[in-house]
């Protein structure tokens, strides 16, 4: 610690000289993300989303800010899926690395903590994967989300179920007790009331659980028409196996987060068939912009670069960094306040759809199309104008 000051001086002088040597203008973005730990998979998907944008925009020469071309550079730190670590690293990005624009992590928990720091320092941050409505209820001015919040995730699925003939009667929901899934589960009683369903089972399980046989046994005895198992991908994979073991034949089985993810089908094969879930984005979206074209084009180029098909984690991240890029260009200068205002007043159309934020930083007007796994592919079944197929109802027995 005593040697700190000279070390800092040394580092400062090196970066100063390095800065003057590099003639290229660079706009530096920072990101603290889960590259190890429980959410590695999701963290990596988010990072790939950011990297995709960076690659494409830099290929075009960079962002056009105030008449000069700026290449985009992103500094990543691994928060090890630890919220404490995440706050420390955001602090580091802002105070040590002097980065003014932060890209958000995966997940509502880290987004919560991250935005508290960025707000304190008044740095702009884009939170592509912050789905929890509470994130936006703190009166923060410097953060912007890119997706609909969990309180509406399941709404359209319940609505869709209510349209089926014969109308289902009973609903069972088993949810993981963490921030995101609690947000998904809280409005379920209201959805049931709105659609005339009977909520016959509503329980939460500990975040670390991997065996649900006890709960599933009880659920099976109640024979629900609609069954919602709310968790992230890892536990949903386990749950589906156990649901099959128990032969729970719900007419519709849904999950709020994992269904659009390709690994679900990869891990479960045929067993994933007919699962229903909402998505933030779909590969057939026809929204266009000048950088990515439309969504089918996005998918093609992403697959070429990363060798796997993107799902909404990556795509949402790309949409977020793109919004930030557009704001930077609109502001015309690397000034935090101006960029913040550019985002707050933004009204553009990108491949992600229309981008406009309300005064809380939430993106306006996003809905959650509903999809079902059909023939090993996540396929849109609602709303009708986007649907590729009809919902298979009831789900065939195991």
């Amino acid at each position: 610690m005593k040697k700190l000051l000279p070390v800092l001086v040394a580092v400062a002088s090196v970066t100063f000289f390095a800065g003057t040597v590099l003639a290229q203008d660079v706009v530096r973005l920072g990101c603290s993300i889960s590259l190890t730990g429980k959410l590695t998979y999701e963290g990596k998907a988010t990072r790939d989303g950011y990297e995709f944008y960076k690659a494409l925009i830099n290929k075009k020469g960079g962002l056009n800010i105030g008449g000069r071309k700026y290449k985009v550079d992103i500094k990543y730190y691994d928060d090890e899926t630890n919220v404490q670590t995440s706050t420390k690293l955001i602090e580091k990005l802002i105070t040590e690395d002097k980065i003014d624009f932060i890209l958000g992590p995966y997940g509502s928990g880290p987004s919560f903590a991250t935005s508290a720091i960025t707000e304190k320092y008044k740095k702009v941050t884009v939170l592509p994967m912050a789905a929890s409505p509470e994130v936006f209820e703190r009166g923060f001015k410097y953060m912007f989300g890119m997706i609909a919040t969990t309180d509406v995730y399941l709404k359209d699925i319940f609505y869709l179920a209510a349209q089926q003939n014969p109308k289902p009667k009973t609903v069972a929901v088993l949810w993981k007790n963490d921030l995101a899934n609690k947000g998904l589960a809280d409005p379920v009683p209201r959805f049931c009331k709105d659609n005339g369903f009977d909520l016959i089972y509503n329980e939460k399980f500990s975040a670390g659980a991997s065996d649900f046989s006890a709960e599933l046994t009880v659920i099976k005895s109640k024979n629900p028409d609609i069954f919602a198992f709310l968790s992230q991908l890892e536990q949903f994979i386990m749950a589906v196996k156990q649901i099959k073991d128990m032969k729970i034949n719900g007419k519709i089985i849904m999950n709020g987060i994992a269904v659009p993810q390709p690994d679900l089908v990869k891990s479960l094969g045929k067993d994933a068939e007919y699962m229903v879930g909402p998505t933030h984005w779909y590969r057939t979206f026809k929204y266009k912009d000048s950088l990515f074209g439309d969504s089918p084009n996005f998918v093609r180029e992403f697959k070429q670069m990363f060798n796997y098909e993107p799902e909404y984690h990556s795509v949402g991240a790309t949409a977020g960094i793109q919004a930030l890029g557009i704001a930077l260009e609109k502001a015309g200068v690397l000034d935090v306040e101006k960029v913040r205002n550019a985002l707050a007043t933004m009204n553009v159309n990108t491949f992600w759809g229309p981008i406009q934020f309300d005064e809380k930083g939430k993106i306006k007007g996003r809905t959650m199309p509903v999809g079902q796994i059909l023939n090993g592919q996540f396929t849109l079944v609602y709303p009708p104008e986007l649907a590729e197929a009809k919902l298979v109802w009831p789900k065939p027995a195991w």
Partner: protein
Amino acid sequence: MMIRNWKWIALGIAFVYLIAAPFFLSAYWVRLLTSVFMFAVMAESWNILAGFCGYPSFGNVVFFGLGAYTTCILMVKLHQSFLVGVIAGAILCAIYAIVLGLPILRLKGHYFAVATLGLSEATKELVTNLDKITNGSEGISLPIIPGDVKVIYAAFYFGMFGIMIVTILFTYWMSKRRLGYAFQAIRADEEAALVTGINTTWYKTIAWSASAFFTGLAGGVYAYWTAFINPEGVFNVAITVQMLIMTFLGGPGTVIGPIIGAFIFEALSEVVWSTFVNIHAAFLGVLIVLVVIFMPGGFMKLMEGKLSLSSLYAHIKENRI
């Protein structure tokens, strides 16, 4: 003689440096040091029960979490001041330790350790489930403190520093009095201690509740400092493990050891992070393994002897099979 003076001088310099640090170090380093102090507090308080009494608790983080939650709940739901929240939290922790100490402190060694671990996990679950009071898995957000960031950070820095000093002084004071001797007697041979008239239950409970009190203080300050807590974050076993590593790297059973260990561990982590973004975690694992193999007695032990390759090798030889 000369060696002892040298250590005191180094300590004095370090002390002065730390007092002056917030005025010239960047906010990031101030935050880092505050975090080190926090772990030092936890390590010191853990030491009261584990190092002195011989009862290694694996679940002390439960007090960290309880302190954090009490502070937040009192501040957010009952609109109390921060000071009230923190002190109340620490007192609650001490009471929790007393009440649960009655059954749990009867267990010995490994069983005690696992029971405390279970206590920590069970409390986490309880807190997560009582969401009417604690907001459950959503966590509690504290309002952001308005004002200059540097000033706020310096305030927390000195706050945590102060708690650390108080904990050290308490440990030192206690070690020189009957309390400390009773603790050590319990550790050496609990049955013999009983026979000599020491009320072991009473002393063990005091040790654990003192341990709980200081850890609770750290938790309360942490909550206000970070402005957001959730069950997974503050009842995290990883905090216990990290704290244990720091204690043992520094030299358990000593007063200064855990603090040195905290510094070493943070410094190591920092270097590894900044240098190896992609493989830092694996590299940290390797580093920990190497450090343990070459410093099996902890840093303080290393300082006691000569610093040479042969003494290093001798250390290994005496500890291996």
